[in-house]
């Protein structure tokens, strides 16, 4: 997994790509959470993520929860088809 962060005022747009699994979940977490912690509005672009499992979903949930605690915004702006499928399945549980 690789990532790129765009800065627009207080907004941070994070572009992730590749595969997000248990091995790289911490890298994703350590990329996203500090930006939310710092009070930035974070948008996540997952349009180039080819695979994501429950580890990746957990990072999204943690990010959402932290953004609520910090009273800032966290949202997904684009998702790939594989990510969309996993999110749809996760929603049945959530």
């Amino acid at each position, binding site marked *: 997994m690789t990532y790129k962060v765009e800065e627009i005022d207080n907004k941070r747009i994070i572009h992730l790509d590749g*595969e997000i*699994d*248990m*091995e790289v*979940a911490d890298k994703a977490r350590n990329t996203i959470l500090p930006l939310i912690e710092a009070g930035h509005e974070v948008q996540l672009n997952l349009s180039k993520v080819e*695979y994501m*499992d*429950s*580890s990746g*979903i*957990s*990072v999204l*949930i*943690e990010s959402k929860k932290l953004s609520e605690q910090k009273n800032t915004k966290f949202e997904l702006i684009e998702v790939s088809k*594989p990510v969309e*499928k*996993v999110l749809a*399945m*996760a929603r*049945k*549980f*959530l």
Partner: protein
Amino acid sequence: MSETAHQDHIEKKAFLVNSSSLKEVRNFCRDVFEKLQIQEDLKDELVLAIAEAAQNIVKHAFKNAASPTELMVVQISCENNKLQIAFYDRGTPVDPKKVKHREIDNVKPGGLGTFFIQEIMDAVEFKDGKKPWINHLVLTKQL
């Protein structure tokens, strides 16, 4: 259920028990499902279920303790359009009664994995591991 008749096939591979192997597990599964001509959407779901089960072995049976020698074996077989995926490992014995998905307030990496496996597969069964194995998990799906 698929209307396609899939050829009978059996294939297995051993992987080192660590998180770096998960990508290899996924690639192995994709190769086998390609040979079985499993439809793309179902293939993605099956790969996810298998990867989650392998992740559970690394996380729970071996408590994330990567070993340079410990192996987990994944065997994929298809017979009469019934797909069976078996996992063998020598980690901490799994108590099937304790295998359940987490509550949402306690979501952590891998916490949704068991839910995904149950959603995707028709059956999830822990069998008695025969020596040298300790855990033997079998996932099945009618194609």
